[in-house]
């Protein structure tokens, strides 16, 4: 039997077709995703993804929170790379209010974003390998990811969601051992990467299971608005960090890997390459890091430092106003996007001049990626469905919001 069956019409024999539910509670669906499959034997004839099992109502909840309170709501959407959601929101509000973020804060933000990207790719690799029953890869990847979470925890107190983003900079500076910790992590990363590369890239089982599966070519990507590693595997070098640079990414040298085959194996190789590129960006940023403030001076948006509260009455009033009321951006609408580990993460903010957003829309990268499975998976065997879902890396918190 070939890997992908092209003639599906001949398999639509009435008594042989079965509907199978790959339910929301399943070990291999990367979250609460439900797939309704029509099968003839083991060949998939049609796929209907059903989502909504993690719908949280975040967009409506954000309409009743102030701008600073929105950060904690929004970073639990894409729960593997929470910092990128925070950056997307902070970026559009700062652009709308024309606030200058200090250089040191921009550089620290880049370090945290790239560390989150490496952590997300490591977890993706670990869980994808676990679904193909390679559980040692899972252990290796998660152990390395723990070092990243240790760095986040020492800096901010929380492992997965550092929540240090504020409008106008960061809530606190890096702690004392952070730079040394990050440097030692970057130094150890290539040897781990080589181990994973030796174990997986030329591994017969891995190649056979991933090559040729879930081919999402360029035309399908454009019709279904796929971004991120999915479109880069189809040969299109579209990376928001290069195309619409933010936070000073244009000052650092990094490549955008692309491949032509557009199958799961190409997406795996792209994510592995991105880990290397991210570590090189972190190295460059650490080398360029200079001392300075991490939060803007604009007291209308950012809290004054605690030491100033003892000396200045104005600082007390600003603190009171910001905490009890929040700030008021001008009326208007704005769209901004960042490159998260999954693709283009965009946010559309509508402000009516009040202290709470009128509408916050999150354009999640995984929403179209789950939809494209409908087009791409028919013709595969049921064992390859799992590989197909894993290769587009959906995060259901982002899809369902």
């Amino acid at each position, binding site marked *: 039997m070939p890997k992908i069956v092209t003639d599906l019409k001949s398999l639509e024999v009435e008594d042989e077709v079965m509907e199978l539910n790959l339910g929301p*509670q399943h070990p291999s669906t990367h979250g609460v995703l439900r797939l309704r499959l029509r099968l003839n034997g083991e060949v998939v004839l049609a796929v209907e993804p059903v989502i909504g*099992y993690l719908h949280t*109502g*975040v967009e409506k909840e954000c309409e009743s929170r102030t701008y600073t309170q929105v950060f904690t709501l929004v970073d*639990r959407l894409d729960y593997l790379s929470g910092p990128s959601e925070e950056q997307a929101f902070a970026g559009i509000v700062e652009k709308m209010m024309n606030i200058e973020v200090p250089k040191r804060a921009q550089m620290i933000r880049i370090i945290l974003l790239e560390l989150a990207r490496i952590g997300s790719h490591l977890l993706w690799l670990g869980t994808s390998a676990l679904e193909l029953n390679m559980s040692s890869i899972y252990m290796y990847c998660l152990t390395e990811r*723990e070092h990243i979470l240790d760095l986040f925890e020492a800096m901010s107190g929380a492992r997965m969601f550092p929540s240090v983003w504020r409008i106008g900079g960061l809530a606190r500076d890096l702690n004392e051992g952070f730079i040394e910790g990050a440097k030692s992590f970057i130094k150890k990363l290539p040897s781990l990467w080589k181990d994973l590369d030796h174990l997986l890239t030329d591994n017969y089982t891995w190649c056979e299971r991933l090559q040729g599966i879930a081919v999402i070519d360029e035309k399908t990507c454009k019709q279904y608005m796929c971004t991120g590693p999915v479109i880069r595997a189809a040969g299109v070098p579209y990376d928001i960090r290069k195309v619409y640079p933010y936070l000073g990414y244009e000052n650092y040298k990094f490549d955008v890997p692309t491949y032509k085959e557009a199958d799961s194996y190409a997406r795996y190789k792209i994510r592995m390459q991105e880990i290397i590129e991210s570590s090189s960006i972190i190295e460059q940023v650490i080398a360029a890091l200079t001392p300075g403030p991490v939060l803007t001076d604009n007291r209308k948006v950012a809290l004054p430092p605690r030491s100033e509260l003892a000396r200045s009455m104005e600082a007390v009033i600003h603190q009171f106003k910001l905490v009890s009321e929040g700030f008021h951006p001008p009326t208007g609408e704005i769209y901004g996007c960042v490159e998260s580990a999954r693709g283009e993460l965009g946010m559309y903010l509508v402000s009516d001049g009040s202290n709470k957003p009128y509408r916050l829309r999150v354009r999640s990268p995984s929403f179209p990626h789950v939809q494209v499975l409908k087009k791409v998976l028919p013709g595969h065997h049921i064992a390859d469905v799992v590989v197909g879902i894993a290769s587009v890396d959906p995060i259901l*918190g982002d899809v369902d919001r």
Partner: protein
Amino acid sequence: MGLRDSKDKLPFMIGPLESLVQWARSNSLWPAQFGLACCAIEMMSTAASRYDMARFGAEVFRASPRQSDVMIVAGRVSQKMAPVLKEIYDQMLEPKWVIAMGDCASCGGIYNNYAIIQGVDKIVPVDVYVAGCPPRPEALLHGLIMLQEKIQNQRLLGEK
């Protein structure tokens, strides 16, 4: 061993048997996979090599509810997921326990709106609540150990 009411007189030889059975049950709790959202990632970290959950008896996460003892509800439960949760719970065989991991499973967490069930104890009876957003892996291990102690103090015959 264990706490017993001195008023209740157990039949002869049931005492040691009860201790043995409760010891066996508490030290081989197999969780059913019910990772929903961010807490599931911390649950995965707890099962990985640094905070190894297998050394407390939670050796494998069974995918089938019929083969598991404890359901760790890790994450926020939405309106669409609630009937699924109840059905998975109903399929588990007695004796079964539930750990509500995280703030969203315990009480709705930071979300108080139309879409999230305010606490999974509105649907299934919960034995241990683990607080945190997400709880640290050590906190989940503490919750698991608390559940083990609770099981060891339960009566085998008669009321739980």
